[in-house]
């Protein structure tokens, strides 16, 4: 019963989000809207944590299995990757370095560089 309720909540949020996106149009991904809807329901207390947990926890636990097939899809674009390897390599290096430095320095500016806890 608790599994049924939990999966029904998740699927209803997804269905509602798809319906909304169908009517307003645009390319915003429906699953993300569904995630925001479910978060709003949880924060407002309409849906309780224990209502979603029975299905959500096992799904989240094995989540990578669901995107492994999609992830393997890059082998369809090996030619494109080869011809732009320098661009892709600089993205992979510079994006994390600049993001790590920017975020950590801004917080260090407010909270100090040393460990204060």
């Amino acid at each position, binding site marked *: 019963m608790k599994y049924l309720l939990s999966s029904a909540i*998740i*699927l209803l*949020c*997804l269905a509602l989000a798809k319906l909304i996106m169908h009517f307003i149009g645009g*390319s*915003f*991904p429906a*699953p*993300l809207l*569904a*995630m*925001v809807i*479910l978060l709003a329901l*949880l*924060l407002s207390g309409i849906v309780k*944590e224990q209502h*979603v947990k029975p*299905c959500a926890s096992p*799904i989240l636990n094995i989540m*990578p*299995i*669901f*995107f*492994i*097939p*999609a*992830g*393997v*899809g*890059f*082998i*369809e*674009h090996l030619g*494109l*990757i080869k011809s*732009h390897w*320098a*661009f*892709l390599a*600089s*993205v*992979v*290096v510079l*994006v*994390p*370095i*600049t*993001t*790590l430095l*920017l*975020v*950590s*320095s801004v*917080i*260090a500016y407010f909270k*100090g*560089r*040393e*460990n204060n*806890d």
Partner: protein
Amino acid sequence: MTNFTFSAISELQPNLWWLSIPFIIVLFLALRAVNQSIKNSVLKSLTNHVFLSISIIALLLVNLNLPYTQFASHSKLLSWLLEPAIVALALPLYQQFTHVRKNLLLIVATCSLGIVNATVVAFLLSILFNAPAQLSASVAALSVTTPISLIVTDSLGGISSLAAALVIFIGLLGALFGFMLFKLANIFNHESQGVAMGTACHAIGTAAAIAEHPKVGAYSSVAMALSALLTAIIVPLLYPFLVNILL
């Protein structure tokens, strides 16, 4: 004669069902069990189970010359389940929200800044290298957990599988070298390190952060959950805006 050749070819092309769902599940669970038993944090990052699962299957398909389309159609059920799994991400997001209420403003602000930075840096690089539009859209949403990156990249018209591979690489690099970078920059504050790791390097970085210090790990988990939500809101608006003003 033609008929004979066709049937011979289809017999030579083995049915891939065993290489799809059953193989993915067994491979993933086995590699995860191995990964979880490893204590050394460098080795743990290098043997990341998601990274290894994707690499092994990709190598198999390429070397055995098996068509990806057949593999994809056999594993459709798994890809379909990604959508409800993304909805379920609301749960950790909610759980993390309650932890950081008092620091929420600073963390949300810096996390958003990190996401904007990742998108802008990738976009500037794509102009610098004169990359085609499809590739530039593929690198717009890399500072986030893989499933969100997949789905946002798809909506921007990029190659989502390429984005997924890049996201995983970024996570690995961050996990391996992130703490060296903090040392060089002279930043030792747990909150700084954790939020930066979670924003830039998602789950793989968070695993390294947990190994570094539980408090860094806690901040990293919060930032990772937040960046899933913030990327979903920011990048679909920011990327078309950048395309409009800079191209």
